[in-house]
């Protein structure tokens, strides 16, 4: 048997055997489930998606009522997942960055506090933290009528968080769009700067034109819109607030829990990244007369981030996946809505498949975007 003597062939053989056994296993499970469902008279397939859902969803970005379809219910849950994951990741990265840098501060107290934060948060299970924050909202905060008002425009109560916001004018609604356009403009200016650097040896400014772009476009549209400047204040109306932005206790506690938990891991990654930068870089920078902050921001952090980005990507994905713990405190994320749908329809195979598909595509698209960014900052070596 010469075939099995080759190391490579043996590896292939194992892989083929492994794949076959996995396929066999899933076929078995699928068959079993299907026959069980058939016995209960549940038709397989995705046709149930266009049936009336018949249940309410606590909060939704799109309009959703109980006589809408399962399709719309799942979309609403999906958008809720995206909402908490998107805002959560931005906050967790920012907080993790700050804590990671301060944990290496020369100030003993600051450094110790950062370490204490990281150690205590990392070592308590996330689900307990979620219960804790949720109980703060529901058990500790007062009713709407006696809502806490720590600073103007912010109201805390057992109905969640109410914040002052811009009024519902189209100008304020397109502001985020101008922000996205500015990001595009940023990359345009960056490209222009690199081109000019290569051609003439003089780099052109990047941040200033981007800022100007944002301000000018916003200002022009603001003029066109007729100088809207009304704010929408939360005001007590009956048993609830009206106006402003409302964050539900479920969303707020999920967001706080996910952000604090993930930021502790992000902080450790940033810290390790900074420590991974060769000591010679610090010495070279300070021997050139740069002060500590300049050395940190111009030399060390840019190099530390390169090391930190791959593990930060997996924390971004972790937060996204952990957002499915929402079900424990009743925030209607995708898993929670799918779960409710499953309980009503019994379409287990289809819904589990959908959950897998949704999380897989969120994960893949997140890592795609982050990997493109990672590649753009990787060091150029010969």
């Amino acid at each position, binding site marked *: 048997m010469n075939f099995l003597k080759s190391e490579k062939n043996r590896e292939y053989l194992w892989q083929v055997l492994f794949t076959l056994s996995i396929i066999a296993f899933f076929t078995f499970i699928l068959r079993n489930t299907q026959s069980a469902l058939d016995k209960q008279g549940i038709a397989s397939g995705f046709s149930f998606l266009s049936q009336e859902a018949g249940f309410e969803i606590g909060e939704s970005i799109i309009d959703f009522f109980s006589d809408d379809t399962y399709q719309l219910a799942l979309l609403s849950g999906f958008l809720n997942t995206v909402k908490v994951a998107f805002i959560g990741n931005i906050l967790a990265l920012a907080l993790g960055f700050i804590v990671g840098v301060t944990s290496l501060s020369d100030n003993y107290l600051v450094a110790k506090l950062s370490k204490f934060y990281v150690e205590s948060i990392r070592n308590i299970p996330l689900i307990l933290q979620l219960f804790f924050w949720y109980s703060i909202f529901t058990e500790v905060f007062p009713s709407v009528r006696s809502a806490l008002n720590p600073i103007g425009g912010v109201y805390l109560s057992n109905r969640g968080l109410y914040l002052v916001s811009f009024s519902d004018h189209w100008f304020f609604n397109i502001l985020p769009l101008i922000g996205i356009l500015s990001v595009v403009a940023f990359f345009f200016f960056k490209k222009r700067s690199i081109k000019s650097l290569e051609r003439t040896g*003089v780099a052109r400014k990047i941040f200033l034109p981007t800022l100007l772009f944002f301000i000018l476009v916003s200002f022009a549209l603001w003029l066109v819109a007729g100088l809207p400047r009304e704010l929408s204040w939360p005001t007590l109306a009956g048993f609830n607030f009206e106006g402003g932005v409302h964050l539900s206790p479920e969303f707020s506690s999920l967001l706080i829990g996910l952000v604090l938990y993930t930021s502790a891991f992000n902080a450790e990654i940033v810290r390790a990244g900074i420590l991974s930068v060769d000591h010679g870089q610090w010495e070279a920078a300070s021997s050139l*007369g740069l002060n500590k902050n300049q050395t940190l921001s111009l030399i060390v952090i840019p190099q530390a981030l390169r090391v930190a980005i791959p593990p930060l990507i997996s924390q971004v994905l972790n937060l996204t996946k952990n957002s499915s713990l929402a079900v424990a405190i009743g925030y209607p994320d995708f898993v929670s809505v799918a779960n409710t749908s499953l309980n009503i329809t019994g379409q287990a195979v289809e819904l589990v498949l959908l959950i897998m598909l949704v999380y897989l595509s969120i994960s893949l698209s997140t890592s795609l975007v982050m990997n493109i960014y990672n590649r753009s900052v990787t060091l150029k070596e010969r």
Partner: protein
Amino acid sequence: MNQVIEIKNLSKWFDDFQVLKDINLNVKKGEKIVICGPSGSGKSTLIRCVNRLEVHQEGSVRVNGIELTDNVEVIESTRKVVGMVFQHFNLFPHLTILENLTLAPMWAKKLNKNEALEIANKYLDIVQIADQAHKYPGQLSGGQKQRVAIARSLCLKPEIMLFDEPTSALDPEMVKEVLDVMTKLAEEGMTMICVTHEMGFAKQVADRMVFMDEGKIVEESSPEEFFNNPKSERTKKFLNQILH
């Protein structure tokens, strides 16, 4: 009194271990000092005390008459007049060659971008590396990297240059291009302290040789005397080892 560096009774410890033992050394403006000695004898530590990358415990170090203390302003302004070149180059790998050179003039000296670029291009020409200006350090050879590192220090227009074994991490064929740059710098009157074992360079450039062993200056003499007629046994032994 035109001593630009005055080191008096300098002693330094790493925990219990005494690295520098009662060092006295003065350097005049324009003088070139070559320090040699066996590995671990404290050469690097000594020159790192001159720009306060290392903190000493006893004695004093004065640069241009100003004593180095914990005063951050004194340290930062001293570092702008004392350039340092490291054994492992320590270029900033995330910046282009040109950015490596303009960084300190812009941030430490607050020059504007065009002034910084002008200076950077001038020194890139001097070390003959202008054609690599837009590459990254990772794309250069060791000799090129070290020439960039020298140019980077020179962009701050320092009065004193410290070299810590600038050629010992290089492949043999690249040593000369770096030594040539250093020789040119010496000829232009730069005050230099070089830790190096390149004895050819030392003979050609040094005004004074300093031999260190076990944290002490064992011998300090002119190059002629040092190479032809060393006084101490340890110097003789060391010279025998590296010249043969």
